[in-house]
């Protein structure tokens, strides 16, 4: 069935966008637009008649305050990684993810809102933002509501967004103290979607024992998964090679999605290798963290 939308609309305000979403039965939001033609080729858009482009809503700002980093939904990967606030060690998983993100052609187009709301569990951004406990601000006819990204995904392509809602920004709370994060993605080639990705956030006590650790893994299931049992094993201990290796087997059950590029056993092996590397790197950043925060906006 052919993809034959009848309209391509550019709402100028958020209110107009919500009105269009409420009125149009067969519509699709276009943010960066990078997945549009891939979805078309997989025959997933044959019922779409209206495309609603958010690029004129002006949702392309990044605001940094003492308490949080707010990233509006149309901010591109290129813009975000240039912002000084993501260089704080607590947020550094974002830099790990985007600084060497390939291909650059997609980095220049893809948006944070698009990467989060398309609900593809292989993408890197949902994993990173889950480990950083980002809150998503959604807006609809009844006003704003806030949801943790950790509760946002229900299934492949399915999020908590209602049909007449859109995401306007992601907010990451800044955490003072000895905090650090790290991210690693494993791809077959530079232009492929990842086979697996892991992001970790670590907060340490003054004696170097683990106060809090969050480990999120993408590409292993229909949604990004949390390594809860692994986190529980690390909690309270000093994070090192040995304590990590003792807990890695707890991650095995997370892997339930295989592909022709990677079977379950292969994914489990790669997941453990990357998780160890990422948690160690996040821990090292937390140990050396001296928090400096400044207000800024672009």
């Amino acid at each position, binding site marked *: 069935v052919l993809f034959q939308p009848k309209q391509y609309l550019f709402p100028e305000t958020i209110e107009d966008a919500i009105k269009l979403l409420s009125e149009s039965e067969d519509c699709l939001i276009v943010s960066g637009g990078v997945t549009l033609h891939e979805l078309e080729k997989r025959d997933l858009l044959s019922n779409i008649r209206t495309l609603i482009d958010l690029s004129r809503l002006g949702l392309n700002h990044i605001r940094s305050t003492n308490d949080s980093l707010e990233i509006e939904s149309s901010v591109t990967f290129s813009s975000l990684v240039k912002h000084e606030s993501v260089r704080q060690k607590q947020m550094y998983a974002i830099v790990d993810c985007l600084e060497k993100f390939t291909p*650059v052609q997609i980095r220049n187009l893809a948006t944070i809102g698009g990467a989060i709301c398309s609900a593809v569990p292989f993408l890197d951004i949902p994993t990173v933002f889950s480990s950083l406990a980002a809150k998503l601000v959604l807006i609809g006819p009844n006003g704003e509501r806030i949801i943790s990204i950790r509760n946002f995904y229900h299934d492949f392509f399915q999020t908590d967004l209602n049909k007449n809602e859109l995401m306007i920004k992601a907010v990451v709370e800044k955490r003072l103290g000895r905090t650090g994060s790290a991210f690693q993605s494993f791809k077959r080639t530079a232009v492929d979607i990842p086979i697996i990705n892991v992001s970790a956030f670590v907060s340490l006590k003054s004696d170097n024992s683990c106060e809090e650790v969050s480990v999120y893994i993408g590409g292993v299931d229909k949604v990004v998964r949390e390594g809860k049992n692994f986190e529980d094993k690390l909690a309270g201990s000093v994070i090192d090679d040995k304590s990590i290796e003792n807990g890695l087997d707890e991650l095995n059950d997370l892997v339930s999605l295989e592909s022709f590029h990677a079977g379950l056993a292969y994914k489990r092996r790669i997941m453990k290798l990357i998780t160890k590397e990422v948690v160690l790197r996040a821990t090292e950043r937390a140990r050396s963290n001296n928090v400096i925060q400044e207000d800024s906006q672009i």
Partner: protein
Amino acid sequence: LKLTLHVSGNEYIVEVQPADSLNKVLRVYLGLTGTKQACDYGGCGSCTVLLDGDPVYSCMVPAPRCGSKKIVTIECFENDSEVRTIQDSFVKNGAIQCGFCTPGIILAAKALIGKNSRPSLDEIRYGIAGNICRCTGYVKILNAIQEAAEKITLMREQRF
């Protein structure tokens, strides 16, 4: 949708359909076939063009949003001495075999050299990671881009 497109210094008025990609508009409506079409979903880089100076996959860019953007395709070589320098370097280094990927790689290289006048081989690898070549094995392409960067930097220094 009626759009005014600014492509490589020329202005075109064109009627596009809601589902059209920039790649389709360039190749089919404007006849600018220097920009190639291959995978058509962002997996090969042969359709790379510059949009407001940044390399993008034209197959992924919805055409209706290109009205106010400055687009550069490989056809710009007639007026762009830096692109001609990259092109000459590709020929001299044997970095072209079938040539299908070449327009996309040259534009990715132009964007890279625009931001980094003396890129290392690793930086070049990163800059063209989104462009696949199935003939050359990349070594000659990397050498060609590095040599072109040196020449372009020299040209810029002489100009000022």
